């Protein structure tokens, strides 16, 4: 057994005893697809149920014949309601979504006029209109056939040409196409995650713990050590990728979940296709392993390595994401690009279009990149400067969550210790996923109370647990300081000024972005209170709860963990993440306003050093919306995003906003720490 194999055997054994790596290597890859499918299924059912539940009220005026009434009644999406009085008023009041006004009966060969009344700005009304129009069309066709029959003519007499649509894509192609765009990315990401932590652990971790010094006293050439470590990392990457591929195939191909069939998400991969994918994953894992190892070895601590590798990780994700965008095809140039080529190849294999040339090209280029990365890694290991540069004084810093986890000891919260940027972002990302998945479930079961529960259980409690269990300093991480009066006042002036401006921004957006009318109507129903009790509940649900639960996550953990960034980047990041958190399929329109609000609140919290300021601002913003939406008169104006905001508000808002900014720029707004700490040297 040569030395590199001794090293590799030992590294594998040690790695397999590491819970974190096991999680990344086995649990995540295996559970990813079933979890994804469950989420997709829930979303699908959620959507379907909503549509089914919806029966649009329509009315028929002008003495409708019984057979027409019967036809409309028979349509499961429509329900006939009687209306009295003004038809237009009935639609405005939402007592009917669409109304057919029939003219006088026209005898045997005349034309009977029918006018369809509806509101083109309402999605529901438009839908009822389309449905009703279809039923009227059927009725017309039936009458026509009757007339033709009475003259002894066949039905085809009136249809000299029949046009029908037929898409040439088979259902599995459609599914393969949709999945083929997203699955390559997932495969690449899992391979990458599989080798990320082992690389850090095997390189920087060894230095941090001082074991490198003893390892290098063994009579083994540095080359064997690099090769041994590198093979370990690559093996783990390949295993993670293989498990991922296996789980993917099992999930999508065995029909383990009924949904795949229902929504046509079938990917059938032939054995050669699977083998081709696997054959490409191996050099990809080698490539990642070598790059990560080569970079991580230059860092003197786990944390430093994580910081050094995160940009690389991001840089690798960008080419992997290319196939997700429709319209980008793998030309020979793109397939030679590292990672991108692999992702395109996977996509083409999954959609059944891959050619042998492309496969060989990708395999060849990936092997070449892997070899180059390997040379780079072994040079890094051979360099004394990299191996001992600053490494000698490295000690285990109690700063990071992962270090603590690894060390596995109870660490007391230390003064001033805040989560690292990566940890904070990862936490928020996970939280968003769980909030999204769990929130849907809770809302389905509990309705509005589910929303309340989701905010407290899935945002507030995890954030608290994260800070306590991670041993972070709550005051510094969450900015738990009592605000100064000037700071709080400035922040409130600022938010009152910001709200109309954000409103204007939302209005301007409607010129470029589509407005999700249906969604907004639902929202409007949710926020509109008709009694004092309901208003109180809505304020609790939509103002107090998000103000507390969302602030502790975004202006607490996220802001606390990103403070090492330059201020403007920290604030923008906060706004963007906050906006993205509120983003779902239909509400792209909410992103920008929310992101702006998030940035403004983050700035105020940062200036004043107090999370309470953020809570107050959030409360004022959301509370105002609830109150305005429940005030008749204002409500109309407010609930239509395409209606311009009152323009006289703008100058007032600008003045208030500027005043708020000026107040918060004063140094005296900064809150004191609750316990005076010894000044840092």
């Amino acid at each position: 057994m040569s030395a590199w194999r001794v090293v590799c055997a030992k590294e594998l054994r040690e790695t397999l005893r590491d819970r974190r790596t096991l999680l990344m290597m086995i649990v995540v890859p295996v559970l990813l697809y079933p979890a994804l499918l469950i989420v997709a299924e829930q979303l699908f059912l959620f959507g379907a149920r909503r549509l089914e539940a919806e029966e649009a009220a329509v009315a028929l005026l002008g003495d409708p014949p019984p057979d027409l009434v019967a036809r409309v009644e028979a349509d499961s999406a429509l329900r006939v309601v009687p209306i009295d009085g003004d038809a237009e008023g009935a639609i405005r009041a939402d007592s009917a979504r669409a109304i057919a006004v029939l003219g006088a009966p026209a005898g045997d060969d005349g034309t009977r006029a029918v006018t369809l009344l509806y509101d083109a700005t309402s999605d529901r009304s438009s839908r009822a209109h389309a449905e009703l129009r279809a039923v009227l069309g059927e009725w017309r066709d039936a009458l026509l056939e009757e007339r033709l029959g009475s003259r002894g003519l066949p039905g085809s007499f009136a249809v000299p040409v029949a046009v029908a649509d037929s898409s040439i894509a088979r259902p599995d192609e459609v599914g393969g196409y949709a999945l083929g765009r997203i699955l390559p990315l997932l495969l690449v990401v899992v391979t990458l995650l599989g080798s990320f932590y082992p690389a850090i652990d095997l390189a920087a971790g060894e230095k941090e713990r001082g074991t490198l010094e003893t390892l290098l006293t063994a009579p083994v050439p540095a080359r064997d050590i690099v090769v041994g470590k590198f093979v370990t990392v690559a093996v783990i990457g390949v295993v993670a990728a293989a498990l991922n591929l296996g789980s993917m195939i099992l999930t999508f191909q065995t029909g383990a979940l009924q949904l795949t069939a229902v929504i046509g998400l079938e990917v059938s991969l032939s054995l050669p296709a699977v083998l081709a994918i696997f054959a490409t994953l191996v050099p990809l894992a080698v490539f990642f392993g070598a790059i990560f190892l080569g970079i991580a070895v230059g860092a003197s601590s786990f944390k430093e390595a994580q910081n050094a590798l995160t940009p690389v990780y991001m840089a690798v994700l960008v080419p992997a994401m290319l196939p997700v965008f429709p319209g980008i095809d793998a030309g020979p140039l793109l397939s030679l690009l590292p990672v991108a080529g692999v992702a395109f190849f996977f996509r083409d294999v999954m959609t059944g279009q891959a050619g042998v040339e492309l496969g060989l090209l990708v395999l060849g280029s990936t092997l070449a990149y892997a070899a180059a990365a390997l040379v780079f890694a072994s040079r890094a290991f051979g360099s004394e400067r990299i191996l001992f540069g600053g490494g000698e004084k490295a000690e285990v810093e109690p700063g990071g969550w992962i270090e603590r986890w690894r060390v596995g000891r109870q660490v007391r919260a230390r003064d001033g210790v805040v989560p690292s940027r990566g940890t904070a972002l990862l936490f928020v990302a996970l939280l968003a996923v769980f909030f999204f998945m769990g929130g849907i479930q809770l809302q389905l079961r509990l309705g509005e109370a589910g929303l309340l529960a989701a905010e407290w259980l899935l945002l507030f409690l995890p954030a608290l647990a994260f800070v306590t269990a991670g041993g972070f300093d709550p005051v510094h991480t969450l900015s738990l300081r009592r605000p100064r009066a000037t700071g709080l006042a400035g922040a409130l002036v600022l938010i009152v000024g910001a709200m109309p401006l954000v409103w204007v921004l939302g209005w301007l957006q409607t010129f470029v972005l589509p407005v999700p009318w249906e969604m907004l109507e639902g929202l409007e129903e949710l926020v509109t209170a008709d009694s004092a009790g309901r208003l109180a509940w809505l304020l609790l649900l939509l103002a107090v709860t998000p103000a507390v639960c969302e602030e502790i996550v975004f202006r607490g953990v996220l802001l606390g963990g990103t403070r090492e960034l330059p201020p403007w980047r920290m604030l923008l990041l906060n706004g963007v993440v906050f906006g993205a958190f509120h983003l779902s399929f239909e509400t792209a329109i909410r992103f920008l306003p929310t992101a702006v609000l998030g940035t403004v609140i983050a700035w105020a919290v940062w200036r004043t050093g107090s999370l309470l300021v953020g809570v107050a601002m959030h409360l004022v913003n959301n509370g105002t919306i609830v109150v305005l939406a429940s005030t008749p008169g204002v409500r109309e104006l407010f609930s239509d995003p395409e209606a311009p905001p009152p323009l006289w508000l703008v100058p007032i808002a600008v003045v208030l906003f500027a005043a708020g900014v000026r107040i918060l720029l004063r140094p005296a707004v900064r809150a004191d720490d609750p316990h005076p700490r010894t000044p840092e040297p």
Partner: protein
Amino acid sequence: MIRFRALTKQYGPLEAVRDLTLGVAPGEVYALLGPNGAGKTSALRCLATLLTPTSGTAFVNGIDVREDPLDARRRLAFLAASMGLYERLSARELVAYFGRLHGLRGAPLDARVSELVELFGIAPFADRLCGRLSTGQRQRVSLARALVHDPPALVLDEPTLGLDVVSGQAIYDFIARERTRGKAILFSTHRMTEVELLADRVGVLRLGELVAEGTPGELVSSTGQENLARAFLHLVGGAEGR
């Protein structure tokens, strides 16, 4: 035997070790003294081939560390001050790993590991992961690890760092035993008592330079001080805080 010949080590502009020449004979224990930052670790690392000397060289059993570092490592046991152990390997696995790296396999490896486990009293925690060991236990495992190939020269960087009196005594016993087995032993330390107890000869480093050398008695008398600690302070006076 161990020999430094005009060895200099620079980190950029900083001269950590300057023109160091000294020798340790078989069966001799040599203590390297010096305030923090004097260059002890740098010198020992050059000897252990972890660092490349800027000029000059060192020999282990006649082998030039610059010319054949791997062969030099085979003849040298190096105990680093950091006591780095693989936290997810058990003590026994760790010693066996280094045995394999030194080329031992099969039955001889097993025999050697059991022997060391016995010798250093590791048996009670031999199958516990190193991450869960106390400082004293870690030090014993480190020693067993360093000696797995039973080399003729021993280099120990602050071997008693962080140890209690009992564990410290175990190290002294170990050094004394290895001396009688004819090993050349070079160690660095900040404790004067162990120098007086163990060292046949002492070298004092100050700002990378060897400023005095001799038996403990010689150092005391040549400086005209009443004990070794005072002699040391006298020799390195004002050298702190580089």
